[in-house]
């Protein structure tokens, strides 16, 4: 783990304006995440977890505050530049998998790489490798609808991994899975973490939060508690 954080949030706020009503989704968030860390962001529904994850993933911009990714301020980048960084630096894993139904498993994994302008041969090699890594290489030609929920989520993880992102952002990755499949996905993330991946996971389930080395608890848009879990901390060394 290097000294300068991979992600550094300083006094980040997010205010939504709806019908002249101001909703403070995030209020003055300070958060540093170092390379190779596995951080769980936990909290009750409506506490601002997903908003924070959207800002971390450059899907949204903070109303105020600064966000440094790899030491570079990214809070006010243009749309296209944000898309470029998202494509190269960030891998997403969503609760509802968000695979594109019309594309095969392989094409879904290959999709983010196509936006990089990567040569086809390299693209295919990396997509195949990512699928093998999550144990889905044999299902490359299937459509998402032909897979179980757990398998779909593994494909989503492969898609996130394929581009070798700086950080994996997982939004309730087990939310749509049964406990067995949920556990399998969590083990997969743990394996990735052990392999050196930086993971930020949003969850409201404290059982799964304990898979991370560190958990950040949000309440009403503020960080109210931070914990470090020994097992995870040990495994991250």
């Amino acid at each position, binding site marked *: 783990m290097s000294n300068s954080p991979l992600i550094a949030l300083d006094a980040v706020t997010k205010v939504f304006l709806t019908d002249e009503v101001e909703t403070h989704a995030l209020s003055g968030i300070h958060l540093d995440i170092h390379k190779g860390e596995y951080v769980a962001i936990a909290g009750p529904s409506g506490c601002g977890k997903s908003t924070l994850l959207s800002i971390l993933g450059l899907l949204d911009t903070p109303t105020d505050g600064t966000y440094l990714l790899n030491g570079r301020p990214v809070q006010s980048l243009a749309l296209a530049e944000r898309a470029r960084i*998202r494509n190269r630096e960030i891998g997403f894993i969503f609760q509802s998998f968000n695979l594109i139904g019309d594309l095969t498993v392989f094409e879904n994994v290959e999709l983010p790489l196509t936006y990089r302008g990567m040569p086809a041969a390299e693209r295919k090699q990396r997509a195949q490798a990512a699928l093998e890594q999550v144990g889905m290489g044999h299902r490359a030609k299937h459509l998402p609808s032909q897979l179980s929920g757990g398998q779909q989520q593994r494909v989503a993880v492969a898609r996130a991994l394929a581009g070798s992102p700086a950080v994996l952002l997982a939004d309730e990755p087990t939310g749509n899975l049964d406990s067995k499949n949920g556990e399998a996905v969590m083990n997969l993330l743990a394996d990735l973490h052990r392999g050196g991946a930086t993971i930020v996971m949003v969850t409201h389930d404290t059982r799964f939060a304990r898979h991370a080395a560190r958990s950040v608890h949000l309440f009403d848009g503020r960080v109210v508690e931070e914990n470090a879990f020994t097992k995870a901390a040990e495994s991250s060394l």
Partner: protein
Amino acid sequence: MNLFLYELALAWHRLRRRRLHSAIMLGTFAFSIGLSLFSYSLFHAIFIKNPTFDPEGNLCLIEQVAPGHGDVWQTASPFEVRTWTEQQAVFSEFAPAVLYRSIFLGTPDRTERVLGANLSSGVLRMLGARPLHGRLFTAEEDKQGTAPVILLSHRTWQTRFGGDLTILGRQLLIDAKPATVVGIMPPEFRFPNDQEVWLSLGFNWAWGTSEEAVFDVVARLKPGQTHARAAADLEQINRRISSEVAAARQGLQPIVMPFRHYYLQDQLRTSALVLFGLSLIFVLMSSANIANLVMIDFIETGSELGVKAALGISAWSMVRHIVLRIFLLTLLSAMLGLLIAVILTPAFYQMLPASNLPFWLHFEMEWHLIYVALGLALTATAVATVGPAGFILLTKPETLIANTLTGARHTGHFTWKRAILIGQMALLTILGIISGLLVCSNYNLGHIELGFNPDNILTLRCGMRVIDYPTQAARRAAWQRSCEALRQLPGVTQAVCVREAPMHRGVLTLYYATQRDGLAEGRSEGSANQFLVTNAFFDLLRIPLIAGEGFRPDEPAEGPNYAVITRGLAEKLWPGKSALGRSFFVRVGTNLRTAPQELIVKGVAADFRSGPAMGNRHDAVFTSILKSEAMFYDLLVRGEQAPPSLEAVRETMRQTEPKIPLYFPNTYRGMLQDQLKMVELTSLLTLVYAVAAGLLCLVGVYSVTVSQLLQQKREYGIRLALGGPPFNLWLRFAGSYVANAVVGVAVGAGLASLCGPMLAALLYNVGQNDAAIFAIISLGIIGLSALACLPSLVRLLRIDPASCLRSL
């Protein structure tokens, strides 16, 4: 009933809530129904509506045509009519008439030209005519030499004779001959057009011998007979009597046509057909457009279906809600469209030159228009609701509910929508190309190099009665006196008598050859327009004489016949040689077997457009009017800065030649414009169709792209989240639609090339498959569709991947 009213109110509220959407649908469809009803009304008046004198539509007109000269019509001789009447077996009624006559009606203070016709008693019987006062013609009065009798139209009786009943039995001067008024017709009797006076058949000065061809024949087909069969029957009779008729009339082919065609020029019929065809295309396009707009509405409110399904509302009820809402909209559009048609149609008829139109070609608000408007509303409703209704009926309720819970918005009709889009593009291309061809043709017509100067010229039609001007010398003196007097008017630079004015529809045709036997047996080396002129004609129209000389003011009536010909004709007759002093032979008029006349070229004039504006024949032969037997001619008077005042010209003529009636006043420019009015209006209307269709397509592409984007919002949310550059995503998205447009345009261009032959009569100096027009329109439409994809870029940029993904 209560439920229906509730649903109706619900539909109304939904339309009101989505004001912009509803307004676009209402506006586009009202406009398209309006234009369609207008075109239908024109089509109905020309092709379907029967004139009041022929409610069954089975009245026919019989003319004859000489073989090989399809455009030269001939009337029938008394012998032919008599024989046909005796031997024909296909008509239930059959009677002769002279349907068009310029008549000089003499009243105590002056002589006026009025429109008249000779009708036999048989024609009046056939029409079921009843006099308002007096009586009709008797069979005896059909015979030549019987006492001249006339019938007055109600309008003439009222306007010229103040509704005085004592006119019955009185004598009026018709073509300087006294004729007794025996009847006054009711106002509703109009035949074949707005005739003011009807003469008995026996009262026909042109009826010289039994071989003189003077008669049109009006007949009624027996049930089950066709026009072609009737013509074949008459042709057989012609063959049987060929040895009994003059050589000039041997081999004539009878033509039997619906009577309504008598007054409807080919151009008008073609225009009506083209406009009607285009309007059908337009309706299809606007229906497809409504369908697309409905799909957007349907997709955007798709989650409502799941809620309704969860509440236990049946699929049929949901379909009924949609159908009711769309029908309400199309019904409102139909009402607005009807209003547009009611305003547009009379205005269109108003713009056409009245002299070219039959009296029944006018707008009437009739029930069938309302039925057509309702039909269009129902068709549009059916087309627009078939997609959503199909989806609702074919999808299980639990799927609808699941879709609501997951936010999925699949209607599964992309292929259907793309097919509609391709169809729309094809239709737009057809409209665009036809419009482009017509506009280009119209532009060419407006920029014709005339070769003469038609500005500041007043034209009037004149006629002379034999009784007033019995000899050629008398007519010649009258022409010279009247032109001389007119030249003295202040501001007048020249005045001439000519038959006919160049580019007039009725220009005379002659056939020519360099040798006399070159005209034997109907042969010729070519045809040219013939003009009877004085030398001042060339000065008045600023047509330079480039070799030789013109006619002398005192051209002798006897002696050799001299001619001035145009340069192009001289080059055709004697290529590379001087035409001066050479002679050639001509046969004038429709009678192809009359003896050729020898003409000696004494001058060559510069080429100019001499034939009708849409025609292609412009070679001209000028002979002296002073040597002609012309009784009708055009008076052309040129002013210095502007056309001379009509009143001043009339007054001068009244003082100089009071017995010559003047009619059809116009400016030369006006006369040329009148010829092109129908083409101009057709071109204008197709342009309106094309522009409107272009707008519809813009809306169409917009609605399809936006609806697809809405349906794929989730997918695009994912793609954006994965770092897909928005602009690249949009390029790929829009590219697929532009590709569809290219397919549609290719199909449309292919179909448009098939429409070419139908348009030929309306095109001037532009090919039916003009590559430049096809290319410009095709590229324009592809560009237009690319432009219409732009709103989808805005929509794409508005997709918030975070909220989009969160909601899933």
